[in-house]
């Protein structure tokens, strides 16, 4: 694994921290509490229930793993809660595990809340055993306790406390049960200076002897290391030959260690790592046997019943596809009326009031244009995405929280794995047909960075909704009788090329063993609504703040390109027109090497649908501009209110309508296209059917729009993958359009 150790604390976070701590009254107690647990143990729900909107969401330094933190007061104490990534173990093999253990080892929180799924005690205790090795005080939240009781499980809570030497609090995070008690025990444990360390579990005579030998040597020879690491933990890691720790400590060879290992190998075989896993699991199994009584007669539970249908050999795929279709519709159709409303408000009332205001103070024309066409339009561009991001995050979080996401991956993995992807890649790819931006954000459901990056690279080949207006205009002008087949051919071409590029990437940039699939299929559960909403809100906010800034900047830049030098009569003389003229010869082999075409394509950087708007401005001679009547402020407010209500109604009814109002349906766009009739006529003068097809193929494939670019950079935390996407898509677009045009000419379709 190429993941670097991660002790460099998140600088931004840290500086806020230190500023806050300066303000802190000196007498107040402040503690740092890390929350660790298995995936699907209800950890997120528990944290959301405790911290709510006080949660700050960011990323762990240098990686794409989400970091959540909250600071709040409880019982006169300032608690800083740090959510560690959900892990099954603290091995050195995945990003999540390395982050969790580096935090515990190097940041040494005052206490660890270990969230344990009461319905799945044994595997959860395996992590508990490893956390206890660190010697940090632990309080166990025995979560999902209500469900365990409903299943008839009897858990001896004092028994666990006695055997592990830690406090155990039964909790049901979705019902907010036991959370108060949990925080009280956290305070009690940290306040109590004696006897707060968890019990030291016996690892069997042979291992203990080895630990003692190594510990003694370390104490004598490596005092500096003992300062930095918990002794028993370090000894254990050296015995396990943990590559990460050996590299980090630069410890080299220790004679005593070799001797200790030699004894262990003689007694237990070559694989010490396996011996350790066995030892820890035996402890977890032994404890589970002692404290857990399951009912004699096991009922077929709900999960089993659902899975019988959902994972059925014949029904599995149809059910999955139906579920996906519903999710796709909900994501894009529920959000669309709101996005349209935002766009209408910004291009309507906000723009003309800003114009009026600017005119009032006699601002020069170009500043008015910069304000309205640059800043306000750019803001609209950002805000238009927000409803979609919210809707997507809501559904993705629901799918994950309910347990269906794992099933979706299970059903689709065979097909996706064939092109080097993961079963979980399917959903982001599908969302790509609506809009590439939420699709790229949706790759966060994948754990492995390689799976994420490869999926992200292929998403732009999914023909998004913004490309549709371009297709429609050209189809209307050149292929009115074969619209369906031309449109279909473009979608299929995108998918086909994604499969092709998947194969290429698998053999080039992503060579080597594919990441593993080994994945828990958790029981189905109803996610807590509060937790869902908090998560969705956090993501939407994150997008607004982080991505918003970039997008706004690029919008303003494009305004400069389009409108400068100020006062140009013809678009040809603007900077954009000039760049278009320079780059036009490159497009000549594709059949559309004109400055008009290339300028429009460059403007499509903002969003591919802008290609149509720019073509309209360039090709169609403007009539004398119609001055729209300026409504009064009161009218505007009223209009804003009624249209929002209308948007709400429309969004609601979209949920229930079936095929009719899909965002992909061509009808409504066809109407819009009809309004662009003058453009259609102009296009017929400049393109032939062959060059038109080459052009729309180019539009399908060339570079991702700037918002998708920002999403990629933000989600993958590097410019690298956007660079790769940009480069390969440009080559692909040029190559395919060239193939279409030159091939067509050879076949005599040029006329």
């Amino acid at each position: 694994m190429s993941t670097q150790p991660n002790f460099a604390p998140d600088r931004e976070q840290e500086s806020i921290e230190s500023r806050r701590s300066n303000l802190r009254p000196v007498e107040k107690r402040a503690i740092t509490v890390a929350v660790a647990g298995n995936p699907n143990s209800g950890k997120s729900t528990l944290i959301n229930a405790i911290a709510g909107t006080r949660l700050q969401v960011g990323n762990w330094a240098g990686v794409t793993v989400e970091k959540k933190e909250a600071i709040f007061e409880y019982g006169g104490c300032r608690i800083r809660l740090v959510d560690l990534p959900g892990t099954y173990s603290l091995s050195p093999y995945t990003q999540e595990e390395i982050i969790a253990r580096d935090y515990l080892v190097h940041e040494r929180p005052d206490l660890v809340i270990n969230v344990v799924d009461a319905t799945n005690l044994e595997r959860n205790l395996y992590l508990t055993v490893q956390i206890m090795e660190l010697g940090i005080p632990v309080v166990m939240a025995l979560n999902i306790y209500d469900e365990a009781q409903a299943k008839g499980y009897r858990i001896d809570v004092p028994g666990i406390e006695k055997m592990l030497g830690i406090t155990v609090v039964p909790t049901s995070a979705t019902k907010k049960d036991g959370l108060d008690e949990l925080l009280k025990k956290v305070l009690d444990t940290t306040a109590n200076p004696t006897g707060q360390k968890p019990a030291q579990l016996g690892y069997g005579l042979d291992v203990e002897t080895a630990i003692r030998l190594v510990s003694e040597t370390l104490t004598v020879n490596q005092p500096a290391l003992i300062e930095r690491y918990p002794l028993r933990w370090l000894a254990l890691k050296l015995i396990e030959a943990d590559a990460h720790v050996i590299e980090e400590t630069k410890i080299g060879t220790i004679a005593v260690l070799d001797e200790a290992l030699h004894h262990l190998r003689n007694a237990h075989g070559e694989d010490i790592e396996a011996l350790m896993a066995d030892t820890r699991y035996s402890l977890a199994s032994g404890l589970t046997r002692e404290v857990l009584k399951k009912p004699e007669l096991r009922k077929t539970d709900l999960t089993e019943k659902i899975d019988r249908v959902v994972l059925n050999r014949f029904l599995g795929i149809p059910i999955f596809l139906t579920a996906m279709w519903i999710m796709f519709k909900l994501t894009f159709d529920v959000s669309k009326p709101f996005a349209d409303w935002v766009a209408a408000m910004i291009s309507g009332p906000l723009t003309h009031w800003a114009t009026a205001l600017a005119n009032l103070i006699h601002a020069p024309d170009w500043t008015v244009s910069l304000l309205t066409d640059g800043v306000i339009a750019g803001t609209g561009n950002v805000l238009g995405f927000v409803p979609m991001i919210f809707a997507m995050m809501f559904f993705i979080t629901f799918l994950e929280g309910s347990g269906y996401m794992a099933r979706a991956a299970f059903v689709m993995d065979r097909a996706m794995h064939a092109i080097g992807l993961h079963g979980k890649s399917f959903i982001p790819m599908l969302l790509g047909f609506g809009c590439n931006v939420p699709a790229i954000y949706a790759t966060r459901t994948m754990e492995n960075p390689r799976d994420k990056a490869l999926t992200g690279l292929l998403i732009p080949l999914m023909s998004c909704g913004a490309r549709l207006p371009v297709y429609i205009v050209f189809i209307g002008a050149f292929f009115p009788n074969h619209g369906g087949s031309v449109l279909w051919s473009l979608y299929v071409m995108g998918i086909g090329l994604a499969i092709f590029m998947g194969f290429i990437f698998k053999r080039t940039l992503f060579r080597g063993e594919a990441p593993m699939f080994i994945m828990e299929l958790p029981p189905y559960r109803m996610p807590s609504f509060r937790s869902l909403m908090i998560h969705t809100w956090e993501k939407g906010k994150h997008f607004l703040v982080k991505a918003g800034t970039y997008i706004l900047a690029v919008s303003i830049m494009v305004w400069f390109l389009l409108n400068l030098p100020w006062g140009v009569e013809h678009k040809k003389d603007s900077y954009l027109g000039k760049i278009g003229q320079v780059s036009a010869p490159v497009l000549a082999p594709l059949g559309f090497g004109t400055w008009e075409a290339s300028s429009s394509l460059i403007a499509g950087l903002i969003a591919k649908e802008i290609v149509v708007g720019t073509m309209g401005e360039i090709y169609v001679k403007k009539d004398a501009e119609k001055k729209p009547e300026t409504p009064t402020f009161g009218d505007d407010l009223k209009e804003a209110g009624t249209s929002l209500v209308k948007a709400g109604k429309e969004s609601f009814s979209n949920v229930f309508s079936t095929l009719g109002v899909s965002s992909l349906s061509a009808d409504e766009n066809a109407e819009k296209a009809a309004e662009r009739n003058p453009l259609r006529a102009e296009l017929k003068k400049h393109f032939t059917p062959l060059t038109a097809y080459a052009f729309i193929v180019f539009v399908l494939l060339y570079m991702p729009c700037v918002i998708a670019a920002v999403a990629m950079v933000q989600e993958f935390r590097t410019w690298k993958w956007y660079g790769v996407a940009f480069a390969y898509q440009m080559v692909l677009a040029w190559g395919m359009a060239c193939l279409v045009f030159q091939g067509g000419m050879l076949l005599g379709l040029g006329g």
Partner: protein
Amino acid sequence: MNLSKLRPGEKGTITAIGSIGPLKRRLMDMGILVGVEVKVLKVAPLGDPIEVTVKSYNLSLRKKEAEGISVEVAA
């Protein structure tokens, strides 16, 4: 006999884990250990991956990953 060959409903006891490195560690962390009983529940509609029960929870893994896990089928 290895785990990928078991049919849905069949049970076995793990006798050896032939995989190496991170894959082996991950399997062990998920409770796939020598002496542990596994039961194959389902095969995905497209024939891969498979779902098994181990340590009283459900785990899915690709057949390729299951090939390295030797099992002794319970009579």
